[in-house]
């Protein structure tokens, strides 16, 4: 049985990937789980592992070709398997439509049309459709009918409900207007009736895009919101003279956005400075926060990298952006020219650099961090996860140990060989960890 190797979907917004290298040639043996090819996406370059053992019979996507998610990139066969070129071509051709036609095939092809109404405007809907619409909270007047005479059937209602749920679950961006008139950018996804809502907060100088590689794993099951903090990403960037770029103010802003978006109580996942914001929010507004995941978080020890402070104080440049990525990542594969461009462009956006400098100044000094939550951890009523890159050179991983010691009920995970940004450098492992922790949370 030949196995088709397909382009994986790594991030919420990933639609295609570019093949950057093959570790085997056609005809080579390969073992299941061994790295087979490397793929570059907007965020990163990573290995794709062989899904089966056998012979790499055919490379479909040569180096440099861009392949849509789920598209075929190679075929692996058993060592003694005889497959003609025609068979191969048919196999590869069959892969794409099969993926596309995953939906259920309707038993009788009928055209959906506007539902018929009587003179009083009452929609022609079957008894079963009316009952199901009531149960699912679907407005019958919005449902297209496939029944004879333009009658809405229960299947039509099910289909409309599924479409509404998938529309609600599809990623969408929202600019949240706050009381002071400023706007906060939020990327929202996932079913609205999900068992948990998760809010992701990025770190100093970052944006919600730092979570791109992990959001996809969560959006199928959970309702998610990735926010851009004030002065960051696509959110408004008021001048520091008009806005207090401090952790408590950011926490208040995030709390307001969570209320506006009706996300509470939410699990807050905060990275670096976002972790400090999450901690402040949990202490100030405990009702909004169901649980806390702190990833290489600020505020849990005194040390902070001198290199980071240098970088913050420097004028934005492409070179500074490169130095920052080198500080963040242990694996040089994640230091992409595209990523450097993106980082530099973000910092060069009007207002962004001033915001970064002001926020850093409020939290860090040359003698260390000026924000301190270690002594206040015991005040937290929420479950806490502490995850840290072992080799973090921005905020050292012994802060994680100290935090866990101060809060022994917390989950602690030190991620081996990883630097300051596990959500990029070890996205699948971090997503799996957070997922395990979410499943362990007591039901409300």
């Amino acid at each position, binding site marked *: 049985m030949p196995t088709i190797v397909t382009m994986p979907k790594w991030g919420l917004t990933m639609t295609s990937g570019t093949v950057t290298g093959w570790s085997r040639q056609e005809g080579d043996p390969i073992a299941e789980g061994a790295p087979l090819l490397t793929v570059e996406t907007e965020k990163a370059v990573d290995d794709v592992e062989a899904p089966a053992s056998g012979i790499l019979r055919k490379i479909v996507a040569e180096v440099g070709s861009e392949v849509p998610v789920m598209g075929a990139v190679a075929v692996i066969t058993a060592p003694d398997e005889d497959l003609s070129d025609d068979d191969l071509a048919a196999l590869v051709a069959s892969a794409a439509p099969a993926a596309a036609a995953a939906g259920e095939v309707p*038993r*009788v092809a009928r055209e959906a049309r506007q539902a018929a109404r009587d003179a009083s405007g009452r929609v022609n809907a*079957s*008894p*079963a459709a009316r009952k199901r619409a009531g149960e699912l909270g679907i407005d019958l007047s919005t449902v297209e009918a496939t029944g004879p005479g333009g*009658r809405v*059937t229960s*299947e039509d209602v099910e289909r409309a409900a599924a479409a509404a749920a998938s529309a609600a679950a599809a990623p969408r961006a929202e600019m949240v207007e706050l009381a002071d008139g400023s706007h906060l950018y939020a990327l929202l996804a996932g079913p609205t009736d999900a068992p948990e809502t998760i809010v992701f907060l990025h770190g100093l100088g970052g944006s919600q895009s730092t979570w791109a590689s992990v959001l996809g794993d969560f959006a199928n099951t959970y309702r998610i919101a990735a926010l851009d903090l004030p002065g960051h990403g696509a959110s408004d960037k008021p001048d520091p003279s008009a806005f207090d770029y401090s952790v408590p103010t950011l926490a208040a802003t995030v709390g307001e956005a969570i209320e506006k978006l009706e996300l509470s109580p939410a699990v807050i996942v905060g990275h670096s400075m976002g972790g400090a914001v999450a901690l402040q929010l949990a202490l100030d507004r405990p009702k909004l926060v169901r649980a806390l995941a702190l990833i290489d978080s600020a505020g849990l020890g005194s040390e902070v990298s001198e290199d980071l402070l240098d970088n913050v104080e420097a004028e934005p440049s492409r070179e500074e952006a490169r130095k920052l990525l080198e500080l963040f990542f242990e694996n040089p594969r994640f230091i992409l020219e595209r990523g450097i461009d993106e980082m530099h462009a973000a910092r060069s956006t009007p207002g962004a650099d001033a915001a970064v400098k002001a926020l850093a100044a409020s939290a860090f000094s040359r003698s260390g961090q000026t924000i301190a939550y270690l002594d206040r951890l015991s005040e937290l009523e929420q479950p806490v996860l502490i995850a840290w890159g072992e080799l973090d050179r921005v905020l050292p991983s012994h802060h994680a140990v100290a935090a866990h010691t101060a809060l022994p009920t917390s989950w602690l995970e030190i991620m081996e060989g990883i630097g300051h940004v596990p959500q990029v450098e070890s996205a699948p492992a971090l997503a799996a960890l957070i997922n395990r922790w979410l499943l362990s949370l007591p039901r409300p």
Partner: protein
Amino acid sequence: MVAAAATRQMTYQQAVNEALQIAMREDPTVVLMGEDIAGGAMIDHLVNEDAWGGPMGVTKGLVQEFGRDRVLDTPITEAGFIGAAVGAAATGLRPVAELMFVDFFGCCMDQIFDQGAKLRYMFGGKANCPLVIRTMIGAGVSAAGQHSGCHYSVFTHMPGIKCVVPSTPADAKGLLLSAIRDDDLVMFFENKVLYATSGEVPEGNEGIPLGVADVKRPGDDVTIVAISRMVQQSLAAADALAADGIEAEVIDPRTLSPLDDETILNSVAKTHRLVIVDEDNPRCSAAADISAMVADKGFDTLDAPIKLVTAPHTPVPFSPPLEQFYVPSPDRIAAAVREIV
């Protein structure tokens, strides 16, 4: 794991005959009465002659095994022998009377409806009426208006009567055994067009409980409840519909009284659509009754109006083309399904 029961191929007619034979062997109080059911056999000079065994030969051979004391040829007087059968049932026998054609019920309705059906009720359970009346129904053999009706709906309307409408040889055997063993008056409707149809019939003497419907064909798209021979017509319609991707579930209630509401409602809850096929006349009929039951108890499961495919509200015509038009055909059944699927 239960081993599949051994079966034997036989006709519907043979299945009825075999059930009678089994019942008479196991219970000496079972007696047969009817016009020409012994067919003159075993009278003096005809002792060793073959006999007709009724107009269709359904009881053929039974008089030879059980004798004229248990297989009684009666005069042509339904009021007389059906009345005698009710009396025999009330006083210790288990008669199986044959009302040759159901169309003759008018001659003996007092005996059935006002006597037999009410015995148990009016005597507070101190008397009962373990009587089976076998009777032929159905159009299709050019037997004209007085020998071709179905009329099981009339008896379904009446309390105290159980109504059995077998559609296959296996059901005919199993249901007749249960009917004979039942302590109430059972009307057993044999469709004359089905007599020559054959099928696998389980060996042995096991009865099929009264009041349990049978899913003759599973499907997800529409439920067809079909009565007696209409089961076979509906299965043919279902095959034609399947070619277009419509999977019909064909349910045979097997008994109209008692009626297995649950099997029908569960099926409609799955398919959301119901077609009822009934060869009887449409007004105040079993089809109308099942329709009303589903409209009441299954209203919220319906995605389409309930469709009835029945004979027209007329007697059965003699003209063969008209008679053919009179009986619901697979084409008409399929057309009704297509209206709502």
